């Protein structure tokens, strides 16, 4: 006997459950969005909105505590004609470039030094990370004291070693002040590099080194042709992170030199602060801060694309 298709179809049809709120909320997409709504709204309110508002502010002449007037690109044109602005841009690039390079080379050295067998390794690793975890402002105050014009311990040691008195003025001369902030930024950021690269080093299979040694590779060749290529992805990502946060650095310079002497160490972030908060020109300050955006956007897009490829 042939079964009629209609009967079959009727049997296969599931009885519709009555709509209930809890089963609706349990559907994957609905549950996800319900769950994510509070954090997303929070981010939109306190990151998204200020970001857009900052762009709007940069197009206004807006003295603090007064209503603003729309001035178009006038703030950016003013920046472009401001010699200090260009000095600050140059400082920011010099600072970021040299500090990143030093952290990269030093971090690699630290990672290689730590990637050997010795006692108390975990304790030493923990101690080496201290500069990175201690609040920047507080360690910077210590450096301020170490480089004090009258009582600098660095100078007293140097003079003890035979340098003429009174020794270099670390924060008083433009070039030395830039040198000092770069060295202190490196001091603080190097452990992050080193420990991240160390983790990368530890994933390199020992067999590769053994094979290279059997093939007659020297120590340098093993480093150049085995270690470095395998570390490349981690070096890249750590560098991108480091560049972003060095490029937008504020604390260290604000505390140590306030951008001086004669703007020699002023960076985009500290200059935007001077104009926006110091002289209360919110619009102009916002325009200075926004000039960081193109370079940052490039880096951020670079990182996110890279992370996407990796995942």
């Amino acid at each position, binding site marked *: 006997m042939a079964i009629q298709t209609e009967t079959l179809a009727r049997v296969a049809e599931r009885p519709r459950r009555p709509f209930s709120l809890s089963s609706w909320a349990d559907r994957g997409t609905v549950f996800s969005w319900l769950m994510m709504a509070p954090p997303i709204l929070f981010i939109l309110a306190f990151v998204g909105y200020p970001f857009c508002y900052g762009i709007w502010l940069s197009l206004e002449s807006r003295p603090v505590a007064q209503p603003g007037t729309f001035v178009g690109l006038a703030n950016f044109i003013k920046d472009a004609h401001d010699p200090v602005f260009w000095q600050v841009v140059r400082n920011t690039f010099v600072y970021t470039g040299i500090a990143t390079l030093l952290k990269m080379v030093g971090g690699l050295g630290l990672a*290689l030094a730590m990637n050997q067998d010795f006692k108390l390794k975990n304790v030493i690793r923990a101690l080496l990370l201290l500069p990175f975890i201690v609040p920047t402002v507080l360690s910077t105050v210590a450096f301020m004291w170490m480089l*004090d014009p009258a009582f600098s*311990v660095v100078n007293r040691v140097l003079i003890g070693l035979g340098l003429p008195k009174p020794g270099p003025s670390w924060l008083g001369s433009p070039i030395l002040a830039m040198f000092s902030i770069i060295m202190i930024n490196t001091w603080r950021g190097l452990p992050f590099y080193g420990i991240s690269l160390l983790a990368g080093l530890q994933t390199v299979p020992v067999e590769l080194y053994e094979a290279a*040694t059997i093939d007659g590779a020297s120590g340098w060749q093993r480093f150049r042709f085995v270690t470095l290529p395998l570390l490349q992805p981690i070096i890249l990502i750590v560098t991108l992170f480091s560049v972003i946060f060095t490029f937008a650095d504020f604390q260290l310079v604000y505390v140590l030199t306030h951008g001086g002497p004669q703007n020699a160490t002023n960076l985009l972030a500290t200059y935007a602060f001077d104009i926006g908060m110091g002289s209360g020109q919110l619009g102009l300050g916002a325009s200075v801060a926004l000039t960081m955006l193109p370079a940052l956007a490039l880096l951020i897009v670079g990182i996110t694309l890279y992370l996407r490829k990796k995942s």
Partner: protein
Amino acid sequence: MITGYGPIQRTVRVWLPVLFFLVVALLPFYWMAITSIKPNSELYSMRANPLLVHAPTLKHYVDLLTTTSFLLWTWNTMLVAVISTAISLVLGIMLAYPLARINFPGAGLLAISVAAVYLVPQPLLFIPLADVINRLDLGNTLTSVILTYPTMLVPFCAWLLLGYFKTVPMELEEAARIDGASRFQTMRRIFLPLCTPGFISAGIFAFTLAQNEFLYALIFLTKSTVRTVPVGVISELIKGDVFYWGQLMAAALLGSVPVAIIYSFFVEHYVSGLTSGAVKG
């Protein structure tokens, strides 16, 4: 490993670089500590050997704790760091869980956006945020920083947890779902208890970042009673050109101690979080 070196050469090769990095990393802390226990007569004397202390004293610590608001600042800092870390962990979990465990349209794009938001540095936002805080009438309240710190901590926690959540196998949750548990029950009862190590890592990071924060606190908190340690030290212990170096160093050391203690307890979590890829440098 194949090493063709004798024991002495080996010691030199291994320890010399390690000691070099160790000395560079710790010298400023040594200097902080030794300055904080020197009497003023030694601090500002050009004759005494600066690297040693001859007549140690706790005077600077006593002065710091009795004549300044340092203890209040410490309390403020702790309060702000703990609350903003807690908020950020909860919001971070709410963001990361669906992104890591549920397949829904747009999840990939959203995960990438979280990473992008995390990378937006504070200097890009502080001027408009200052205006927002003003309009909300939150200037000089701890609420201002408790609300704004999570702007950097939420994306950060979410990103860190996202990576962690992805490493947990799916089977337990699938079993719970088959047994009839709702998605929320599955997450709360089955999944989250498995992820405590991830929460500890994210929590310590968020806590250290909150303790370290300076820019927002500098702008929003201008009254001594609401200041955090970094801002209080910079604004009140440095008075014009007169420096109280002994007190300053005592403050720097004491301000670093809470972070260092928490860090030392969870250093393994910290390192594993650090090396999983996404930390501000």
